């Protein structure tokens, strides 16, 4: 049990901090939340800046173009970036945090050479085409079909809730390549170019008012067989790799952000007199305990990953469950601090409160995460 960082880790932190202090003031102004092309350009620009400074894909393996950093270095990177107010990964989320690592782990040499460098250089954006209208929690029920036709798959069907679909260049797409096989056995993982003929993207408006995600219709879209990552009909296994990355490391920086917001809330409450309310004050105190513990759990999970070779385990589900609810409570507390102003959509905390509602749904709902914890960690029987 050791929470001190090694001299090398501290040096890494110090250099990073120094670099961030220079890089961040040089950033262009943030685009408005509805300006999608602007947001894409902004996010990719930051990725390019990271690349030029040698910080791109820190946690990716060396032979995938990354820095081969340890999980602890990655943790430091996420912590310091958030503290310094660096941009959120945004449009680079899927490419950097799970499609890229999946291709690095499961792709062929030429697939890695084709897809990984543009993600690191901030040239290409990926989206995730897993969910379908009738296959959300029950992902293995997906029906989007792919037929072999020469060197191509011909794909028809539809995907939904696809974040960043409007501005993506590539999509990690799950398709059914063998409809007669048992549900988990007939699936394949493909990289689909988003400009292929036959693709229609229909933006969906979220409850926060913006179009964060979209419905994607696929009408006989041709995708080269060479774009398949992993063996044909072995896509479910590849998908589990993707999901472990999605749940494993994706929320680390956000915990740091929540701790910052909590401090800001306390100061705001002091400023507007709400601090005198002992119930509210103690609620904020309890949230402080919660987020401190979540940060400790993050450190625990990261050092465990470091010992076991870097692959995030099901511990990510434990974290995601608690974090997603805590985040919602944080913004409920913010509304309590703001008072009537909490109903003003121009307040950042009001928008964040709305966005926080997605955390118990996206990347596997809380109910599904509880099933995972109960069945895979506690060994309880599968129910029907």
């Amino acid at each position, binding site marked *: *049990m*050791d*929470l*001190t*960082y*090694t001299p090398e*880790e501290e040096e890494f932190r110090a250099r990073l901090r120094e670099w961030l202090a220079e890089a961040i003031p040089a950033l262009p102004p943030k685009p408005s939340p509805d300006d999608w092309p602007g947001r894409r350009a902004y996010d990719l620009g930051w990725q390019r800046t990271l690349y030029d400074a040698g910080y791109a894909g820190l946690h990716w393996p060396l032979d995938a173009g990354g820095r081969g950093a340890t999980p*602890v270095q990655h*943790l430091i990177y996420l912590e310091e970036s958030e503290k310094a107010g660096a941009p959120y990964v945004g449009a680079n989320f899927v490419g950097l945090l799970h499609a890229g690592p999946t291709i690095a782990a499961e792709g062929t040499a030429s697939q890695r050479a084709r897809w990984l460098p543009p993600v690191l250089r901030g040239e290409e954006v990926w989206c995730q085409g897993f969910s379908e209208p009738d296959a959300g929690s029950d992902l293995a029920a997906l029906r989007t079909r792919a037929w072999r036709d020469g060197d191509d798959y011909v794909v028809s069907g539809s995907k939904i809730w696809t974040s960043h679909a409007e501005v993506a260049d590539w999509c990690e797409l799950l398709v059914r390549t063998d409809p007669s096989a048992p549900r988990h056995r007939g699936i394949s993982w493909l990289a689909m170019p988003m400009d292929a003929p036959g693709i229609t993207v229909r933006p969906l408006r979220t409850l926060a008012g913006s179009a964060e995600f979209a419905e994607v219709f696929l009408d006989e879209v041709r995708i080269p067989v060479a774009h398949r990552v992993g063996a044909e009909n072995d896509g479910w296994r590849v998908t589990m790799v993707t999901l472990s990355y999605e749940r494993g490391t994706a929320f680390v920086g956000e915990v740091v952000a929540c*701790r*910052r917001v*909590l*401090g800001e*809330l*306390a*100061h705001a409450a*002091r400023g507007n007199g709400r*601090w005198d309310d*002992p119930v509210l*004050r*103690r*609620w*904020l*105190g*309890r949230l*402080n*305990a*919660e987020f*401190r*513990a*979540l940060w*400790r*759990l993050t*450190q*625990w999970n*990261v*050092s*465990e990953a*470091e*010992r076991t070779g870097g692959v995030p385990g099901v*511990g990510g589900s*434990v974290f995601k*469950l*608690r974090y997603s609810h805590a985040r919602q409570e944080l913004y409920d507390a913010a509304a309590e601090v703001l008072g009537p102003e909490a109903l003003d959509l121009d307040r950042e905390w009001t928008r964040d409160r709305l966005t926080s509602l997605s955390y118990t749904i996206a990347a596997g709902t809380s*109910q599904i*995460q*509880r*099933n995972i*914890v*109960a*069945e895979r*960690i*506690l*060994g*309880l*029987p*599968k*129910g*029907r």
Partner: protein
Amino acid sequence: MDFQLTEDQRALRDGVRALLAGRFGPEALRAAVARGGRGLDRTLWRELGEAGFFSLRLPEADGGVGLGLPEAVLAFEEAGRVLLPGPLVATHLAAGEVAGAATGETVVTAVYGGLVEWLDESDAVRDAAGSTAGDGAAGAVPLTSVDPLTPLHRVPGGLPVDPPGDASPTSPAGPTGPSDPLATLLTSAEQLGNAARTCEAAVQHARTREQFGQPIGAFQAVKHLCAQMLVRVELARAAVYAAAVTADPMDIAAARLLADDAAVRGARDCLQVHGGMGFTWESDVHLYLKRAWVRTRRGGPATESEELLADDLVAGAGR
């Protein structure tokens, strides 16, 4: 940073677990219940002393084991798992100060949160300042303890008791003063062990008890109760271990809130999973819930910890 147990820490934990399994198994627990919280097992107390339970953090030069807070926390977690009775925390903290405490010859209790545990069975009483010089428990009156394994005395003026309907203001911190962070941390470790054990017991029962032709653990309503128990345990574990490493008062306050929550809610959920059996005296579940309740009072009212952590936010240290 390697925030995992070292080989030595694992060995220590396993050693304490084996010792307690041999010396305070389910039968010993039932026998202690049958004694009704009278007659602390002095032989066991001395055996714990010999094993270094009380002298764990005492320097080797002073005849101790020379280990640190993280190791003590692991040992107390194990004590919490088996509901080991007695003023373990107070005696541990008195080692090196009160003659015979380190070896388990002397049983030392303390005033925590306005209450004294095992007063009649103890040889010395520590007050809030850690001193055994005065009579910290002068005028203490017995109460009928909710926990059959923890006799309790209330210290006069220790904690205000409001008659129903009386709106007169009461002082939040009684004459017992602020709570001792180390006692709070070791108590949190016991709560963690308590929570981990009830989670295991619930899972075990859910795997074997059948209704409607299948194990009840296959039903999501039960499965999700168990999953939530584990989530609370794991979060509390991270908080308690971190507080043991840093010994920071804020980390300790946070660990306390999460560990209390994991222990109390875990025991309740465990009882629920056991159904009618859980509501009987024969099942051990109520013992875990009652002890968890007793321990929640040791660090003073939970609101004190919350206030501390709230102040930390405006002090800026929480960022």
